[in-house]
């Protein structure tokens, strides 16, 4: 899995270097990366390995978040292949727990205690329940998500995999890969699926 990404990066990066879009200036980028590598120190759980790019980050950083379509497709499929679904096939949990999780923005900073659970960070960027007015706008509004899209098995699978790994759908999405980095476990993602799709959830009222 990881090997596959590294391989894809090795293949993709030299290929792209020839046709780099104007926004990524190679020389300054190299200076920036060297500067970052020397200017940080580990603190709490935030260790220095966090400064290294993984395959997806490397591609997105080098293309101004706009990779060539073939590479994007290949790496999205790679990310999708690693999505872990619940063993019992049930994708909907408890929307009330999902709402609580969506409210919390805690986790992964050098001040946070290492380990789970961490927050879903959802309201930081999305409008979700109409009852919560303090929502961010970095991501799209999810108000009435289930009402608009229905609660089919297909939609459930889409939402689950999107929360698990947004990059499986859109390689350079701004959204973290909550399942892949093990920030959220299977049951927590199920609760968030319910928050968006359960007809009883305030999101769909």
């Amino acid at each position, binding site marked *: 899995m990881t090997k596959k990404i590294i391989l894809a990066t090795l293949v993709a990066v030299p290929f792209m270097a020839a046709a780099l879009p104007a926004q*990524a*200036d190679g020389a*300054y*980028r190299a*200076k*920036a*990366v060297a*500067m*970052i590598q*020397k*200017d*940080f*120190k*580990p*603190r709490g759980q*935030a*260790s*220095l390995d*966090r*400064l*290294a*790019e993984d395959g*997806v*980050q490397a591609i*997105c*950083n080098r293309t*101004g978040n706009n990779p060539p379509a073939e590479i994007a497709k290949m790496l999205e499929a790679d990310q999708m292949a690693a999505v872990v679904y619940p063993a019992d096939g049930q994708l909907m949990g408890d929307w009330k727990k999902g709402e609580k999780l969506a409210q919390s923005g805690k986790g*992964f*900073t*050098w*001040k946070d205690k290492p380990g789970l659970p961490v927050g879903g960070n959802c*309201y*930081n*960027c999305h409008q979700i329940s109409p009852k919560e*007015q*303090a*929502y*961010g*706008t*970095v991501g799209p509004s999810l108000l009435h998500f289930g009402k608009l899209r229905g609660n089919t098995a297909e939609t459930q699978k889409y939402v689950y995999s999107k929360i698990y790994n947004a*990059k499986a759908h859109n390689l350079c999405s*701004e959204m*973290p*890969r909550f399942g892949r*980095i093990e*920030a959220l476990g299977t049951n927590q993602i199920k609760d968030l699926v319910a928050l968006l799709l359960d007809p009883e959830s305030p999101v769909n009222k």
Partner: protein
Amino acid sequence: MRKFRIMSALCALTSAGVFAAHVQAQEVDHAKADAEFAKFRAEMEDSNPAELFELKGEELWKAKRGPNNVSLAESCDLGLGVGKLDGAYVLMPRYFKDADAVMDAERRVVWCMTEKQGFKFDDIAKKPFASGNYTPEITSLVTYVAGHSRNKQFAVNLKDPKVREIYETGKEIANYRAGPYDFSCNTCHGSDGKRIRMQNLPNIGSKEGATKSVMGWPGYRMTGGVMLTHQWRMNDCFRQQRFPEPKYASDTITALLTYMTANANGVMYKGPGIKR
């Protein structure tokens, strides 16, 4: 007159502290809190607590200190000549030949403290930002320096190739996505009109956004009641980006400050401010 202003600044300091505690305790409606903060900030403009730190900074600037027993006033060149303060802040970051480096204001004062006064960098870097009742000397010094550029225009010299290089590097640092959440500076600060919760996010790549990012620093923060510098803001941004901690007064921070300050070139700096 000055005495009166300090008295009212002290009053404001106390009530802001009480106010901040109130907000933290209740986790109130964010929109309402936002509006209340704005009102409070407007009321405090005439009696800005930052002035207390400017006064403290003035004492520190003029006093003979450190192992070398010299004052910054008689030894520190902020780019306009030794001891010259007026308008120095809005011209930084700038290239300093004696250090062969581009430096922002805070980094330059630290350099003067170590190179001229003989303080140890590690001692300054151990606890460089305010917390609780503790305010580092460097914070007061930077506030004092910044106060001498009130109502002057930001004018980072991008015609200097060394400054230009740091600017372009800073622009790339702002682009760099990494860490568990795949965040870069630009995830939050790279486009117009975005918010995290109710907090507006300035786009540091635009003149308007860059202006919002540089204005009011160093700033007295109502939440917590502490005086904080722009270096602190960069540090806390990296925390929220889920990165490791940037080293104090490092090139990376200077590069980011160069990028956003130069993007605000031509804008009038209003002096040390008040933050929510």
